[in-house]
Every structure is written in C-alpha cells, then in structure tokens.
C-alpha cells in the first residue's frame, strides 16, 4: 500500500453499542489534500465516525470494518492504545467542537502545543517550544510569544480554537479531522477560523474530514460531502452536485430547511416534511443574484430571482406591509440611555470588585405589532437587554419603559402589568423547563398568579386545565403531553412547551432569546413557522434575539445590531442587509455563510 494515494481509507465501518448500531457500514476515502465534509442532524453518528477513525471510542462501543491512515499501516481498528497513540497527533490529528473545554486549563498553551512535538519526538523540547510559538504565529494569534505563556482561560473561544489547530497541524498529519470546530464561535470568528483551516490544509496537502451540521459551512470549506442520517451515509458527491441536485429526499429536506430565504406557497419555511416542493437549484440562481447585490451596494432593492411557481420569495412582502402600520403605532417599549454594569462579586473583604459594562447607553423604541430583531456576537449584551426588558434585572442607569411601566428602580409589585403583557422564550429548550415538573404544571405555572390574568381573578383548576390544553393544541402538542415530563420530548417539542408557557396568559409582547439556535435545522424551520403563526394570530409584538442573521432576516421587520454593549445600527431588515451603513454590520453580513453565497464561490 503506498501512502500517497489516500489520506484515510474507511471501509465498512460499523460501530455498535450493545444491540444498537450507531454507525452502519460507512465507506469512504479521502485523498491527500482533499477536503470532505460530513453533514447530518444531531445524533446521526458524525462524531462516532470521526472518533472511531481516531481510535478514541470508549471501550463500551465495538467496531468492525477497517480504517487505514496514510503512514499508519493497515487496519487500525482493534489495534492497541499504545500503537494508535503513535499515529494520533502525527499521522492524523483532530480538532474538537468545544474550544472552552478541549484545552487543559492548568497548562500554558505554548506547552500544550509543544507537547505534541515532544510526544512524537519530532522536535527537541527547546526546539518544540520555539516551534510552538511559530505555529501560534501561523494560525494568526496576535503576539505569539506572549500568547504561548497564556493559560486557556485567558484566551477567547476563537483564539483557543486556533491553538487547537496549531496543535493539530504541528506534525504535518496526513489527515485532519475537525468535528464542528466552529459551532461554538461567533460568525465573524467562524469565518476567520474556517479560512485558516482551508489555507492550512491546502498549503500542506492535508486530507480534511470536516464535520458540521451547517450546510453553508460545509459548502464553504469542502469539495466533497457525505450526508449521514441515522448512522448511514445516504448520499455522497461533490458539493455542487449534492447541494443542487440532491438524490436522496433526506438531503433535499436538509437543504430546504436550511434555506431561510425560501418559503412555500403559504409563506412558510420548508421543513423536511414539506421539502418536496423545494427546488434546490434555486440556490445556484440565488447565489448569482446575491453576488450582484453585494457587489453593488447601491442597489437597495432585491430583485427576486425567477423562482419556480411553488417558491415564493421570503417573508418580505407580509413584513413590509406590517411595517407601514407599525411605524405609526405608539412605542410599546421605549429605551433611553440604558446602561447596565455588572459588578462581579468581590472575592473577599479587601478584594476589589470587577466591573463589566454589559450595556453602554442604548436608545431605541419598539412599536406595537413590530417584529424587532436583535443581532450581535456573543457577549454583546443581547441577553442582558432582554432580561432588563422583561423586568428580571435592573438597569444601572437610563430609562426603560415597557407598556407604560417604568422599570428603573421598579419594585417587584410594580411589575404586575409588565409580567402580564410580556413573556419570554429562552434559548436552551431543556434548561428553561424545570425537569421536575410535568408539562401541564409548567405551562400552567403563569396562571397560578392571578395578577397575570387579564381578568385579575384566580383561575380555577378546571379553568387552568382548559387553558393549558388549548395552548398545547395551539403549539401543536398532543393533549396527552400534560402528564409527561420535559425529558420525554425532543428539542423542538420542548421549545413548543416553552412557547406555550409564554403565551398561556395571552401577553402582548413576546421576547425570545435565541429560541432556535440550539435546534437542528429540520426542527428550526418548524419552530420558526410556529412563532410566525402565533405572532400573527395573537397580534404579538415580537422582540427576537439571534446571532444568526438568516433567522432574523426571515422573521423580523426591524433589526438592531449590537456590539460590545452598544447598538451600532438599527433599521428595517432589508435595508440593513442590503445596504449596511456600519462597518461592523457589513462584516457581519459578509461573514455569515449562506448556501447561495458559498455555492457561488465553489
């Protein structure tokens, strides 16, 4: 076997846990320098596949088939840990998803990078230290000599992921496996890291196995893609082909659900179930149009492409109608000079408190019936703002008025009106539901306080049961759900429970903090459709936070862009996208990978 004709060769890889098969007969081969993507929904077996290749599966799982790595001899499956250890980090290496936990918190990062060279004796300790700094420089870390002496917690997520990458590339492996390396990162940082991976593997001729659930990302990095569903590779081929002419319905479904610019005849997003009416080819055509738009920022109006009959252009139409009505309505939320400074608790009698300026002077209005989006990267203060709007936290200074209640210095008893009119949906569908309460109790909880009800009179148990049942029906959950507990539901269903709880008292304002970012694309579309429907149905004012521009664009008519506690730009959605006035907004738009965009580049 010559080591030149493949970076990795996987044949009939099957992984089982007891009687369940996690990965079923997977076969693929990556040529040196080739970039292959592996996509699929959560739980489809992507990570198991990649860990199996690295030989890092827990002992409780059993494998069959064969895995060969360039320079690693024949089948690695079942080889001893010591034998595999010689290959890991030299012939093949891996970058993991969670940059926060993948590095040893107690070791300086320079040492961690140098270690991979000393382990494999590819450099003397002193040489390794020196090369580590060079590698950190290679991956674009500022001031590499200093950075080498830092501990992981002193670096940002993106920086840590660069360190991981430096580590992975140190010994020039034939194969680099990246398991969702950018999922935890902001879009702007994601773009930098992706560019870096791309450049590194191209320069070194490294074979790349890139795992992600984000179709746009895979399109921007890889040449070829494997689509995995329930442990089986259902489709494989060049990106172009697979994404524009998918053969398998599952692939088509993924594409449809990922495309937030396409809606069906009813103006609703496609889901995997409704993907039949979706034409993937439009991506290619859209991409062309998009390029045009970005290329000529002067053109503020987007020209709808010649879409097939079944596909109607994004929600632009209904939204702009609403927008007109909205602009005349009185503000339901009014924010002036809002600041919030957190004082991290002192660590002792003489310890000085650390101050975090989470919000630094915000001004904006939200009008009745408006769909107000807030985008911004992690830590920009989005959640803080929402907490203040919903009266869960106090502003440090400035005025906030929500439905006529001034929140500055408001006591809990002054907030009755606010609590009745404004409700929240949170990001993590599991974390926002008390695992110890039945769904019925969870949804009924807001009804327990008579102050929350329009009537102001306590609801009888029977009344409560009726309202809960009605609400569950509205969000599309079976009536029997009442008796069950959150863990018995899927992520999408949990988010429905959360929405039901928020709406059971019929609020006028719904505040949603990244309600879909923890969800798979397939479910994401369903929840977004539901939200849109309910907002219409109940005539809600929506305040919607997301870091995903696509989602905001689909749902909101007005967008505020936040950065480091400030709003850098506000305006009608389309205008902001098409003619970003602020440099940061422009960066954001450019950094966000969209299928159209990347396919065009491919």
């Amino acid at each position: 076997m010559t080591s030149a004709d493949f970076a990795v060769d996987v044949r009939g890889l099957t992984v089982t846990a007891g009687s369940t098969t996690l990965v079923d007969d997977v076969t693929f081969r990556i040529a040196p320098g080739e970039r292959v993507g592996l996509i699929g929904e959560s739980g489809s077996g992507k990570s198991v596949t990649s860990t199996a290749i690295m030989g890092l599966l827990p002992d409780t799982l059993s494998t069959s088939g064969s895995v060969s790595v360039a320079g690693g001899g024949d089948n690695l499956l079942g080889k001893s840990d010591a034998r595999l250890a010689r290959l890991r980090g030299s012939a093949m290496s891996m970058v993991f998803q969670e940059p926060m936990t993948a590095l040893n918190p107690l070791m300086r990062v320079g040492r961690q990078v140098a270690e991979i060279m000393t382990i494999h004796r590819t450099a003397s300790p002193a040489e390794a230290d020196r090369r580590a700094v060079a590698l950190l420089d290679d991956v674009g870390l500022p001031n590499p000599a200093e950075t080498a002496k830092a501990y992981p917690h002193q670096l940002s997520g993106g920086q840590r992921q660069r360190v991981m990458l430096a580590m992975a590339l140190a010994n020039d492996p034939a194969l680099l496996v990246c398991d969702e390396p950018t999922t935890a990162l902001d879009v702007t940082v994601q773009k930098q890291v992706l560019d870096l991976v791309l450049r590194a593997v191209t320069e070194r001729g490294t074979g790349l196995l890139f795992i992600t659930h984000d179709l746009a990302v895979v399109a921007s990095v890889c040449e070829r893609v494997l689509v995995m569903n329930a442990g089986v590779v259902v489709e494989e081929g060049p990106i172009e082909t697979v994404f524009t002419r998918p053969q398998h319905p599952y692939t088509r479904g993924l594409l449809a659900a990922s495309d937030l610019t396409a809606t069906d005849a009813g103006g609703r997003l496609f889901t995997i179930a409704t993907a039949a009416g979706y034409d993937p080819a439009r991506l290619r055509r859209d991409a062309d149009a998009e390029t045009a738009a970005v290329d000529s920022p002067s053109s503020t109006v987007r020209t709808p492409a010649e879409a097939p009959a079944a596909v109607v252009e994004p929600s632009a139409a209904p939204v702009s109608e609403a927008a007109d009505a909205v602009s005349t309505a009185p503000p339901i939320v009014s924010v002036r000079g809002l600041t919030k400074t957190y004082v991290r608790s002192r660590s002792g009698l003489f310890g000085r408190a650390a101050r975090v300026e989470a919000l630094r002077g915000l001004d904006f209005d939200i009008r009745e019936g408006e769909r107000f989006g807030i985008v911004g990267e992690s830590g920009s203060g989005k959640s803080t703002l929402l907490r203040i709007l919903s009266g869960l936290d106090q502003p440090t200074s400035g005025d906030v008025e929500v439905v006529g209640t001034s929140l500055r210095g408001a006591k809990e008893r002054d907030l009755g009106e606010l609590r009745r009119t404004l409700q929240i949906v949170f990001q993590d569908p599991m974390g926002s539901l008390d695992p110890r309460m039945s769904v019925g109790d969870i949804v009924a909880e807001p009804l327990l306080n008579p102050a929350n009800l329009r009537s102001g009179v306590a609801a009888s148990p029977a009344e409560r049961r009726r309202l809960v049942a009605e609400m569950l029906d509205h969000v599309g959950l079976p009536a029997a759900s009442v008796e069950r507990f959150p863990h018995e539901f899927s992520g999408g269903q949990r988010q429905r429970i959360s929405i039901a709880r928020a709406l059971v008292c019929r609020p006028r304002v719904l505040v949603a903090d990244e309600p879909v970012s923890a969800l798979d694309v397939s479910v994401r579309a369903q929840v977004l459709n539901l939200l849109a429907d309910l907002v219409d149905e109940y005539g809600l004012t929506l305040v919607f936070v997301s870091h995903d521009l696509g989602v905001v664009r689909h749902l909101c008519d007005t967008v505020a862009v936040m950065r480091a506690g400030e709003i850098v730009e506000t305006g009608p959605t389309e205008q902001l996208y098409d003619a970003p006035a602020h440099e940061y907004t422009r960066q954001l738009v450019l950094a966000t990978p969209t299928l159209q965009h990347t396919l065009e580049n491919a």
Partner: protein
Amino acid sequence: MTTHLDAPDATGVPVPPPTTTARRKRARPGIQLIIGASLIGLVAIVALVSLVWTPYDPETTVAADRLQFPSAAHWFGTDRFGRDVLSAVMAGSQITLLVGFIAVGIAVVVGVPLGILAGMRQGRLGDLIMRGNDILLAFPGLLLAIVFGAVFGAGTVTAMVALGIGSIPAFARVARSGTLQVMKTDYVFAARAANRSEFRIALRHVLPNISGMIVVQCSVNFGIAVLAEAGLSFLGLGTMPPTPSWGRMLQESQQFLGSYDYLAIAPGLAIAVAVLGFNLLGDGLRDRFDPKMRSNR
C-alpha cells in the same frame, strides 16, 4: 475563608450538579444502591424489631451468666454483666439510627434553608450567611461534641446536637452551590417572568432540583455521624450506660480482646455494616442523580 469555590463542599464530597436530567430514564439501580439500601434496610428493620422485641432485655444483668461464649441460648454470647450481646447489638441500632437521624436532621433543617437563602440572596445577606458558615466550619463536630459535653453534660443528646451543628456547614454549602446553579437556569427566569414570588420559586423550583444533592449529602453525613458517635462513646463522651451503644460496647470489649473476642466482633461489624450501607447508598444515589457518573461505574 474564600472557599466559596463551588468546588467540593465541606465534607469534600464532589457536588453533583442539580438533577436536571434526574428523571431521564428509569435506569436500573446500581449495584451499590442495592447493597447500600439492603444494609440500611437491615439496620432499620433490626432497630424496629428491637423496639418491641429482643431475645433478652438488653439492660438486665444476670451475674450468673457473665461472659458466656456464643451458644444456642445466646447467639452472640453474653457480656461481663451477663447481658445478651445480640440483644444489645439489636437495641444499639436504635441509638445509631437516632443519632444519625437527629444529627442529619438538624443539619438539613438549618443548613439547607440557609444555603438556599444564601444562594438566592447574593449580596450582603448571602455573604453574611456564608461567612458565618465558614466560622462554624472551624468547629468540627467532634470538637463541638467534646466541648458541649462539658457544657451540657455528655450524652446521646449532646452528641447528636453537636454532630448536627457540626455538619450544618456541609449542607449549607451543598444547598448554596446547588441553588446557585438552579438560579442560573432559564426555568427560574421563566418563573420570575411568570410573576412567581421568590418563596414559591424556592419551594417549587429550587428545593426539588437540589433535593438529589441533599439526599446524597444526607447519606454521607449519616455515615459520618455513626462513626463519630462510636468514637465519642469510645471516649466515654457518647451514649451513657446502661443504654446499649455499639461504640461503648466496642470500648468495653477492649479488655476482653484475646479472651472473649466475640464481644468486639458483634458491635464492630454492626458499625461497619451501618456505615458501609450509608456510604454505598450515597454513592449509588450520586450515580443516579448524576447521569454523567453513571456510565463510568
């Protein structure tokens, strides 16, 4: 001290996270849980039975029957006053359980609300509670028991109360760190947004979600209390005669080591069984409440 690191608590038991996934799957109870529960069950049943029946009266001395080796009449033999050792071991389980229950009970009743309060009211009040807790931490239960013995007279009650007070910090810490985690969850925010009072939140959300950790801590401290009571009785500062107590039986048996070993074996085994039972139960519960740990044991 600034040991508010939400690292391990006072007894050093790593704090399991709140049981967000507690009900996940009805996993089969672990072997530790089964053994632990059986041992404790055994002790509890013996204690209950001894309330109404023991083979002989454990306190009545029969001079003629002193120091008899185990026989059909006296399964575990008799002690130097001619009392039946089996009866004494059986009755001794009452004291053991009582000390455990009261000591743990005091610690839970005082420590848990304090911990929850400290966790929910960060700031002055919370700081104050935890400072007080740190001070209390400087007085180990055994030290309190010895000093309280001097102040109030040594005895079972003093021992229970002292051991209970001594374990308050452990519970306050566990409760506080659990509460801090629960308070960060979105379902607490949701409950706030739903206009629920802090008291209701404490009752409906915090308490149920930290109960797993508390239960684990209880079983750990139960074991600690049993051992401490035995140690105190050994020093003559625990349960006073004639009430049978395993620790004192062990202490009295010392002079018969080498000639009447059975006198030491019975109470020694009884202590080990009870403590082992509680420890296994604690470990088993921890595994159950902390699914992360489950796969690894």
